[in-house]
């Protein structure tokens, strides 16, 4: 079947089947290489995307479910000021995700900051509870997200 949706702000059309997962379609057909299809059960979080403003793990969704939706991945965030906020926050708090999980951590952080610029540690841990990579300490990560929120608040207020 053919589906249409918006990917990182651009209208795209893709051919897919009913048994294809969203992560496979994005990774293999649309060359979104920041997504890593690895666990296929929503455990690792390395396939996180923002779908119509909501954080979802794309390994748990069938590809056809994204018809007429808007999806943002790491590639859509990486060249924005929002990305700078996130990376600055991570850097300040010594949260250094590895190259494998960094895209997912950026996408999840972006989704948190889209809902609030002043997240609590509890909210952050809840949102990150569907991810796992041994590279990063959760405490630093939580502080990094809070710091990223501060950067974004400051940037928006300065405007």
């Amino acid at each position, binding site marked *: 079947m053919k589906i249409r949706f918006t990917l990182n702000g651009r209208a795209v059309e893709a051919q897919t089947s009913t048994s294809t997962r969203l992560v496979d379609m994005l990774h293999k057909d649309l060359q979104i*290489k920041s997504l*890593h299809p*690895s*666990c296929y059960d929503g455990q*690792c979080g*390395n396939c996180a995307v923002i779908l119509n403003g909501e954080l979802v793990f794309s390994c748990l969704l069938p590809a056809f479910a994204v018809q007429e939706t808007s999806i943002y991945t790491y590639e859509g965030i990486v060249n924005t000021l929002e990305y700078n906020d996130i990376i600055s926050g991570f850097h300040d*708090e*010594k*949260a*250094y995700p*590895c*190259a*494998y*999980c960094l895209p997912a951590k950026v996408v999840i952080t972006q989704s948190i900051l889209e809902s609030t610029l002043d997240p609590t*540690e*509890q909210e952050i*841990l*809840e949102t*990150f*509870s*569907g*991810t*796992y*990579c*041994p*590279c*990063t*300490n*959760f*405490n*630093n990560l939580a502080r990094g997200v809070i710091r990223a929120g501060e950067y974004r608040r400051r940037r928006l207020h300065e405007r």
Partner: protein
Amino acid sequence: MKNNYRFIDEFTRKGMLHIKIVRADIPRGSIASIETTNVSENILVYDADDIEGINRVVVLQEEMPLLSDGNINYEGEPILLIASEDPSLLETAERKLKISYETDFSLLAFQPASEDQIVDSAGLSRGNPSKAFEETNQIVEAEYRTTTESHVSRAPTGAYAEINDGRITVYTPTHWPFHVRSTVAEVLGIEQKEIRVIQTNPSPAYGEKVVYPSTLGAMAAAICYRTGKAARILLSPREVEKFTTRKAPVAVKSTSILNEEGKIIAHDIHMRFEVGAYSLFTKELLNRAVITSGSYYQVPNVSITAEAIRTSNPPMNLYRGLGVSQSLFATEVHFSRLAEFSQLNPGDWKKSHTKSKNIITGSHIPNMPLEKLLDTVIDQSDFYRKHSAYEQIRRRRNSVKASRRFLRGIGIATGFTGNGFTDKPNTQDNWGIKATLDKKDQLVIECGTMTVPEAIKTIWKRRAGEILGISPESVEIATGDTDTLPDSGPMMLGMPVTVYTSLVDRCCNYIRKQRFNKPLPIEVRRNIINARRTTWDPTTFKGVPFHNFSWGAVVTEVQLDPLTLVPEVRGIWAAFDCGLVYDTQYAVSIAEGSIYEALAWAMGEQKVTPRYYQDYVIEGQDQPNLRLPPVSVVFANRAKGLPGGINEIAESLVPAAFVTALSQATGVYFDRIPLTSETIQSYLEEPS
């Protein structure tokens, strides 16, 4: 070519062959026949007889076959490789292969194990332990066990090989590119100079990226060499978890004699590690276990032996901690028990044993930091007050099940781990690094081992900058290509942060001295081997076994729900002396991460993420109390000496402190990990 940061699953080429490993269905036996007649002609079938060189992977005098030589020693052992341009054909091809076995039902078990299963052993003896045991009848005896632990690294594991200008290039996420090269050369029967190995992004790893990529690299190279086509092998997450490597389980028998003051007169430790069907790095594992279990406790009569036991399970000894986390768990739980038998507070008992300046090997530690570390964690955790209070509450309580309150306990553990190998293995190659200062005052440090973590790169840059008086920004670090870089050995056992850092120092000091005597560029290479042989005797276990030490003390406070028997960690206080720490905040972050990992091992969880803390609800709260256990980490003496490893010491002490805390909470002697609510229940039901 900037391939260092690509993942192995991103390597692809039109016409590339995809490789699948056909694995043994039985745990032990031999192959009677392999029938391939039903397999499509489009599928390449490759077995041990097709190997043009030698069918083996050699690691420091130990080896295992690349493909089964006819014997099966564990379920999942590679028998054949099948390859095709269309990966979807491989599943069908595997089903059409008919492999018949002659099953050997006498599986090699860990408990009990026969003498024939002992692969290797190590040990030391001081004083006269046999005589001491004959002369007394006040003996404390216990057996401790730890189970295996598998890793959950999600990054792809595999290898890609192609032929460029008549040479084979292998890409793989290895922590030891030169081992990949030597393995490929031996398997293909060609010279090492015909092979180039480029490291791809290994991501966080627990030991599975040290040797296993050599196996996969040899497989991909073998198919590529045979067909002339590019070839790629990718393991599934299940294969990585089951067949690469995992932590070696251990059974430790500890027997001690105490005098009236609570001092240990004699001590006998007998450790048995399960290493699976093939053992790798066994000598190092045993050496480290013996040294760290002997620890800093000055016992006049001591005997320590460690044995590696071969079983019918997949190979499982090469894992982060390499014997140390297991041996320190047994030692520290046992010594906390001895303190209790002596009717002394375990904090005081351990402090009374830190007066010596020597460890078991006789290695002199002029600034033994343990007393200071113990004082730090005891003060921060309010250990004395809590220990006494929990002890009194426990003594007044009738039974665990009858209690209406959380049962609380607090435990303490101390010890050290070593950085670097205990002995440089006999190999023709010297492991080292190279540094070159050019005319523009740019320094290039070449290390052939790995994609060096950013934190360690920062340390090297800062140290080089300080020694040479140049800006850290003008220091470049090159890694991960066997064509251009020196062999720096494997990335494990704290080598990068300690051993390579000392080599960076030596290179830079040489350049500093020569800088105004010789014209630039000045190039220097320094190897690990030279200084080590004079200070350590591996046959007698005397001398300085490691490049440097990491010391630590950890207190863990727990509470147990008497109804669900779910343990909860109320707090962890840790103090470490890991030498020079440039970035304390980052060091604390690493230590915290390792503490959470260790806690997950001790509590039998897959891994600690916030998800695992959602299960209990505090009364009066609507939302689950989602939080990580609070951890406090302090680094002592952080302005001195060489930097040391943090991960190993942080994760080695937590399980012992956790188990002794639970023992105090319940009054039951726990002697194994993991401790889940089910195992706690089984202990409580045992007759006391």
